[in-house]
């Protein structure tokens, strides 16, 4: 068996920016002294005239991004998720979201998988924050292929987009010819007993969980929800009708993220039991990412357990 290719979605983000920069002279990139970590450094090297470092001042960076967008540029503004969605929340809300400007926020180092840096940097609240801004699109890619596709698609649309990337190298899931459309869920596997809806690095765990469940005779419908807003409600409701119960899986607080978005959709249209896999309303901690993820229940094993609970609630 060939070795699994592992690439961090932040690396794919950095490469996609260079690719975009070559195609589109209107693309500019901003960073707040984290170009080496967010991987915007590649763009900086390739297009120094179109790269702006605001220094450690994320609030100002978001405003500068907004101002640049008003002069006709497609602006990518990058920092860690904690500082993009967290520190600069109100700048994103008022100066980018409210005027609906063409700013794409490339937020890296999201979630528990930041690892050793610990809780101060492990942002598990960003989806909740960004979901609450009217008109904000939120994409949480599962692998490097999807991350690249997300960046290219975000550049094509007009308006604000929050892209959530990880620090950790994650297994490649998708082929080169993978079709990506903002707001369109991807059904990875069809089944009838339970639906697993996963996003980001939890998609890989969900694939493993589905295999384990199938081995036990449980038929699993598996959906990759790369776009959390606007949520593909049609896909969620159709899955609810088909399987009668749902498990959601995300590297984010169980409050305010994918799980809540799915609950909102089914509550209104077709209520079924929903069990969430996510960070259980707690702060992260330091440690190697691959050890932390199972510690916080962010693994296939927990998805399998939660799937059985979901089925039992039907």
């Amino acid at each position, binding site marked *: 068996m060939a070795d699994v290719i592992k690439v961090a979605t932040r690396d794919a983000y950095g490469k996609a920016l260079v690719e975009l920069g070559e195609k589109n002279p209107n693309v500019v990139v901003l960073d707040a002294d984290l170009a080496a970590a967010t991987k915007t450094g590649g763009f900086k090297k390739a297009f120094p*005239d179109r790269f702006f470092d605001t220094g450690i*001042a994320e*609030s*100002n960076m978001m*405003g500068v991004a*907004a*101002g640049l*967008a008003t002069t006709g540029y497609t602006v990518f503004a990058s920092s860690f998720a904690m500082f993009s969605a967290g520190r600069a929340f*109100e700048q994103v809300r008022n100066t980018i979201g409210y005027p609906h400007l063409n700013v794409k926020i490339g937020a890296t180092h999201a979630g528990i998988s930041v690892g050793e840096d610990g809780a101060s940097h492990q942002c598990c609240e960003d989806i909740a924050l960004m979901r609450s801004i009217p008109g904000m699109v939120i994409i949480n890619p599962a692998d490097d292929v999807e991350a690249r596709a997300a960046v290219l698609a975000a550049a094509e649309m007009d308006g604000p987009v929050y892209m959530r990337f990880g620090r950790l190298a994650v297994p490649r899931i998708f082929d080169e010819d993978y079709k990506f459309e903002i707001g369109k869920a991807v059904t990875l596997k069809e089944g009838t007993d339970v639906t697993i809806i996963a996003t980001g690095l939890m998609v890989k765990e969900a694939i493993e969980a589905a295999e384990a469940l199938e081995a036990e005779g449980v038929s699993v419908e598996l959906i990759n929800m790369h776009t959390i807003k606007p949520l593909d409600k049609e896909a969620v409701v159709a899955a609810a009708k088909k399987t009668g119960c749902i498990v959601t899986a995300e590297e984010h607080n169980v409050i305010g993220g994918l799980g809540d978005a799915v609950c909102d959709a089914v509550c209104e249209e077709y209520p079924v039991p929903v069990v969430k896999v996510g960070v259980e309303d707690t702060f992260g901690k330091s440690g190697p990412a691959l050890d932390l993820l199972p510690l916080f229940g962010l693994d296939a094993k927990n998805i399998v357990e939660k799937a059985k609970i979901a089925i039992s609630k039907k």
Partner: protein
Amino acid sequence: MDVVAKKELAKVACNVRKGIIEGTFNAKSGHPGGSLSIADIISYLYFKEMNIDPANPAMPERDRFVLSKGHAAPALYSVMAQRGYFPVEELKTLRKIGSRLQGHPSMKCLPGIDISTGSLGQGISAACGMALGGKLQNADFRVYAILGDGEIQEGQVWEAAMYAAAKKLDNLVAFVDNNNLQIDGTVEEVNSPYPIPEKFVAFGWNVIEIDGHSFDEIENALNAARECKGKPTAIVASTTKGKGVSFMENQVSWHGAAPNAEQYEIAMKELDEVLNGLEG
């Protein structure tokens, strides 16, 4: 500036002040004090300084205006109406449901607003982005922002100030409307931003101090800003909050309160008297 031009500007500013009173009176809310204090500066910008076309508010080569102290929206709307962006009559819709004249400026609602503002400290960052965009596309447009003296207590203003100087944004001019009052009292009582000029100098700006109600001084400062290369310019303008309406002048209570019918009549009478004097 010659006497005739100065008189014309004084008329504009007086009409702008009348519009501020008209708007806030009809809205029964709003911020007349800090709107009146910038009336002369904003009148000069919209009638003498800026390359703008009310018939083509999105003209790419236009100069940009950022009201970083967005609560002074009544002054911005009033000068835009005077300049012909929309009918003066529309000022009566300020803050009402369905109005394009939101409580704070919204670029999605009103053509001619270059960026939505209202949350203090954020406009100046957007102004930096516009100035940067201008440099990047080798465009000649200039960017004008107005900050409040209370507003500069926001840390983001200084993030932006550091950045504007670092990027040598000499196409950016930021006025500081130094009327010395904010909601909770004088700026010194609340959290002194003084000395303001020295702070901007330390951040690498070209700094000019003026009387913000003198058209000559506003003009000279803006001309000097144009001549200054490699640095953004801060024009620290000493102003009077509530300027032009006797009972509102230097009264902190008029930061965010609208005149009632009786006060409206007195204010309009005072301004009309000034206007009649200028017509004579």
